[in-house]
């Protein structure tokens, strides 16, 4: 079975459909470094999902190439290729006739893993995604939407694939649970360090989960491929600026915690933990009608201060 993370390269990857004007994905070239999360984002018709499905060849390339750790997907056996790629979709797609454990064991079973091996692995993975081991014997119909999505993630991770494809995995979940799942996904990624291609139409989700964001415009054209910070601070053109939203300055503030900023000497005033984001701090200043806050450490001790000028130069 596979392991570790792989570098993913789109090399002029193009998909055209016969009888339809324009490409669905148009000469897409980008490199996702091993162990990073690349978010494909853009309005509908941007070819995000098509680009994703080109990777596991659920859709075949018209021209160009996609390489995983230097090997073209076209040179690999189709079934082997797919077994080496974790796949998570919006509707989760858990098999309703299989228990949670059997669902998680889907791909390992294809590799001929034994029942005891699958049992142990599914227990590990349930713990990893934050579900009790008793969930193993349940059926998907007995789970909530959020729980199903966790099991879907566990299933995609079961064979330890070097690459994960996630197609709007949290889109069908209510906002509160979605935020929690995003947090847990990022925590999980710290542990497993997979290369992930993540499709979403939600720019806020893209900013939150992406190490890099690829913005696609209708017609499957890549407009900008950068870190969230660069995209927020230096959108390449009006399309990107408009897509990330008029509040992009605020979104950029949300990417920094106070711990990353230069703090002034300790002062009195409303307190804020240094784990809070710059955006939270600004919101607190507005609410309390002050220009400076006392920043506290994990024990609640004041270690410095932050002023409005630092946040909004």
């Amino acid at each position, binding site marked *: 079975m596979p392991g570790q993370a792989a570098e993913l390269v789109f090399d002029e990857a193009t998909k055209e459909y016969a009888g339809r004007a324009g490409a669905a994905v148009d000469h897409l070239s980008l490199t996702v470094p091993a162990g990073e999360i690349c978010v494909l984002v853009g309005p509908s018709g941007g070819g995000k999902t098509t680009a994703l*499905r080109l990777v*596991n060849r*659920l859709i075949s390339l018209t021209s160009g190439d996609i390489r995983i750790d230097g090997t073209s997907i076209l040179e690999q056996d189709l*079934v*082997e*290729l*797919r*077994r*080496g*790629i974790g*796949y998570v*979709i919006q*509707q989760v*797609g858990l*098999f*309703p*006739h*299989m228990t949670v454990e059997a669902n998680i064991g*889907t*791909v390992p079973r*294809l590799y001929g893993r034994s029942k005891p091996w699958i049992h142990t692995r599914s227990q590990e993975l349930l713990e990893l995604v934050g579900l009790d081991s008793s969930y193993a014997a349940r*059926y998907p*119909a*007995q789970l909530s939407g959020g729980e199903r999505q966790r099991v879907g993630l566990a299933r995609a991770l079961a064979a330890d694939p070097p690459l994960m*494809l996630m197609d709007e995995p949290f889109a069908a979940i209510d906002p509160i649970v979605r935020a929690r799942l995003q947090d847990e996904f990022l925590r999980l990624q710290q542990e497993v360090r997979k290369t992930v291609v993540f499709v979403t139409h939600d720019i806020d989700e893209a900013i939150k989960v992406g190490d890099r964001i690829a913005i696609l415009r209708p017609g499957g054209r890549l407009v900008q491929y950068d870190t969230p910070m660069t995209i927020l601070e230096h959108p390449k053109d009006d399309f990107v600026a408009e897509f990330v939203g008029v509040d992009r300055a605020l979104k950029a503030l949300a990417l920094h915690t106070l711990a990353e900023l230069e703090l002034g000497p300790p002062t009195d005033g409303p307190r804020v933990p240094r784990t809070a984001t710059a955006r939270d701090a600004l919101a607190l200043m507005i609410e309390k009608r002050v220009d400076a806050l006392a920043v506290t450490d994990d024990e609640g001790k004041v270690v410095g201060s932050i002023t409005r000028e630092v946040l909004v130069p």
Partner: protein
Amino acid sequence: MIVATGPVIPNFGQGSSCEVNNGWFCTDWVSQHWHDTLQPALIQHIELTVIAVGIGFVLAFALALVGFRYRLLDPPIGLFSDFLYTIPSLALFQLLIPITGISVTTVEIALVSYTLLVLYRNMIEGLRNVPAELVDVARGSGFTRAQTFMRVELPLALPAILAGLRIATVSTISIATVASFVIAKGLGSPIFVALEQDVFKTEIFMAGGMAVALALVADGLLVLLQRVLTPWARLVRAT
């Protein structure tokens, strides 16, 4: 008042007064003729049904594989099974006798024909209704086409397939009574005999009742099978 001049019953021994007067239900006749008439008829009836449904299931499954894989072939196969189903059973027996004679084969061909429609339609519907995203996930996870069929499509179609099997079984048990027009086998045979013998009520009620009971028991067993094979299906329906 008409007085019977002799025993009017077909399987008479020393007829009781109930039997001689063709009473509504003569328990002594039933206990006397359980072993020589009713039990053999029941066993034959079960045989006729099991063979018909068994062959029908295998045939329908083979046809469903073809109709599911090659969509273009589904309408003609469906139409053919529809057509078979519309032929009245007595007419079908008459049509078959010149070819297969007065034999079990004739009966089974007719019975199998009637199972095809419901079995085939349910199999195709069950397979078609498997959500596309599940097939997508299976293919995307590296299932071969055969694995996708065996591990995802077929198990998910099972509730519909078993529902078809229940209907086919119950209706075959019912139609099989008509087989006695061709051969003296099954629960239709004592009914047929009793009709010819001045409508001997006890035998008609008993054999008819046994056919109904057999259908109910068979249906119950198939419901149990359904629960054992698809424990997840009730959960899905509940949500």
